[in-house]
């Protein structure tokens, strides 16, 4: 694993995931998600051929686009209130605590997947934890979808070093697009329900 841009990508991905957790503006969230996929794809090029990583990147961007369209439809029916500053601070604190735990447990976690570079294990576990925090905190379909996709990006980082194959990587890309599609669908259906209630 070489190249300073790969290094940047490995450390940048958890940072973007952290921003995703605290930022409420949906446009920024979609942009950050696209950035997260770009960094993850850059990291994965160290293990996968470029076309395979690019296919995942396209699937990720497509997921962002699906969520943006769904959110746009939902906004026409009225947006929800933004979360208070204290709520965001709390999220930041819990995320920081989760990252500290991951750093502490990194030697043990790396022993689970010794063939995966240590920095990548950290990045993957951080994305996994930050994605799971999204899922634990909200019922809101956009956040749920973004959290699920963050978590799946974390999984992809480890998976890329463990498995190679066109069909498996293709199915993983479909899986990510499907998560976005399901999240977007729930976003639209939920808002139509609220509109009619």
């Amino acid at each position, binding site marked *: 694993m070489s190249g300073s841009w790969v290094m940047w990508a490995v450390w940048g991905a958890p940072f973007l995931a952290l921003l995703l957790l605290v930022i409420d503006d949906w446009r920024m969230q979609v942009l950050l998600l696209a950035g997260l996929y770009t960094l993850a794809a850059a990291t994965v090029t160290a293990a996968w051929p470029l076309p395979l990583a690019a296919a995942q990147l396209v699937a990720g961007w497509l997921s962002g686009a699906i969520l943006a369209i769904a959110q746009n439809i939902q906004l026409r029916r009225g947006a929800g209130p933004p979360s208070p500053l204290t709520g965001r601070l709390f999220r930041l604190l819990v995320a920081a605590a989760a990252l500290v735990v991951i750093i502490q447990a990194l030697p043990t976690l790396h022993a*689970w*997947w010794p063939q995966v570079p240590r920095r990548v294990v950290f990045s993957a576990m951080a994305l*996994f934890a930050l994605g*799971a925090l999204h*899922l*634990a905190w909200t*019922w*809101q*379909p956009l956040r*749920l*979808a973004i*959290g*699920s996709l963050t*978590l*799946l990006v*974390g*999984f992809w980082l*480890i*998976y890329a070093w*463990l*498995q190679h*194959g*066109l*069909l*498996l990587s*293709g*199915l*993983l890309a*479909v*899986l990510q697009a*499907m*998560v976005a599609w*399901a*999240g977007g*669908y*729930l976003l639209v*259906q*939920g808002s*139509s*329900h609220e509109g*009619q*209630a």
Partner: protein
Amino acid sequence: MSALWIWWLFPLGVGLGLGLWPRGTTRQKARVAVVLNATLALAAALLPIDRVVPVLGYRVVLHLTPEMSILGRTFLWLDGQRPWLVALFGAAALWALAAPGARLAPDVPAWTLILPAGVVGALAAQDLLLALLILGLLGLAVIFLWVPPGRPTATRGPARYLAIWVLGLPLVLLTLSLLTGLETATWDNPDVRRAMGLMAIALALWMGLFPFHPVYPLLGESAHPARLLLGWHFLHVGLGLVLLRMPTVYLWIRETTAVYQGLRALAWVMIGVAGTLLPFQRHLGRAVGYAHMLTLGWSLLAWSLGSDLGPTAFWALYWPRTLWSVAWGWGLAVLALPHDQFDEATLTGQGRDWLPGALLAIAGLLAVAPWPGLPWWPGVAYALHHTGTIAWYGLVALGFAWVGSALTGARWARILLAPRGDNTAPPIRRWPDRAWAWLALAAWLGFNGLAKPLFHWATNSWPF
């Protein structure tokens, strides 16, 4: 020609086409789905795989090959697995048959083709990782079944399900990645223990035990029960059959009692928790969710018997449970026709307008516990017998299941058959189409012993 073209890609394609086709009523689409599913089930019973079958007076021969290769991965369907095809497409035909009577939307018959085809794809995948990825996709696809388009639906339950499903899936896939190359390892291997730890967390998530608010009742509150039971049926049968393959791939599982004991403990916790919480539900949909959790507990108990005895118990539960799900889903759907709500206030007295629906709803709740005499009692009794000495916690869980289901049945009998009082929900006015025909069919299939020979045929043909 590969057999998988017939039983995987063809029904999947037709199902997707049928679902996306904008015209046609439920009845018309159900007709296509019933005929196709029944034909596929019949073809599976008659056509051998990997043997030349003469047709048209020996001038033409049909040779179905077992394997198919897609992008370098092998998919295989052996002749010994044909009973599974009969079971999957036979059940799908029953669901499609019930769809018009339950007044379900036109998208449901298409799902009766997509779901069994998806399960066939997962079972055909030789690589367990690939099989679980396919099931992962199927698990996401059912969200579109549970939240039908163009109909106001509460999305809280499906949103929760999405989170739980996505949390569990990477854990299962990482488990299988960790186990790569450890087919003949031993339980002492640290990688094996780590993998099993991840698997246990994933199973607890998917089985609704963690994080303490089971997803099933939430889904029951949000989605239509007939749609839910259809999705659950195929998803969990697919998961069960794929996981039953694990001991045949990872040979150390057969000798590791800790794995089976863990599964058994999980099963008993599910049965106990669901049985305890079942009578306290004021929403019939939530009761359906807990009831499903309870029946999943029985399946898990069957699975804990391992790859030698497990399939027998699994198939013993399959047909009766299928019939129960179809009949129950249909009864509940009809019962809620005028208002599409399943809360206590709306359903009060509705059973008086349509007694068969009320009786089916009550019988469905009663039937989740293994009362002796019910068609699935032999399956549960077999599982109980072969799990060895019944521990005290098992007896307690069984007691909770019995008492819980009896109390729930009594509660909903009181609600559904009470005078309407000040319930302003419109009563069920129109007698559902072919209600008696369907009831007679369900009774005939369920109680005249047809389930028994089917069960014997299925279990005797277990390929591993």
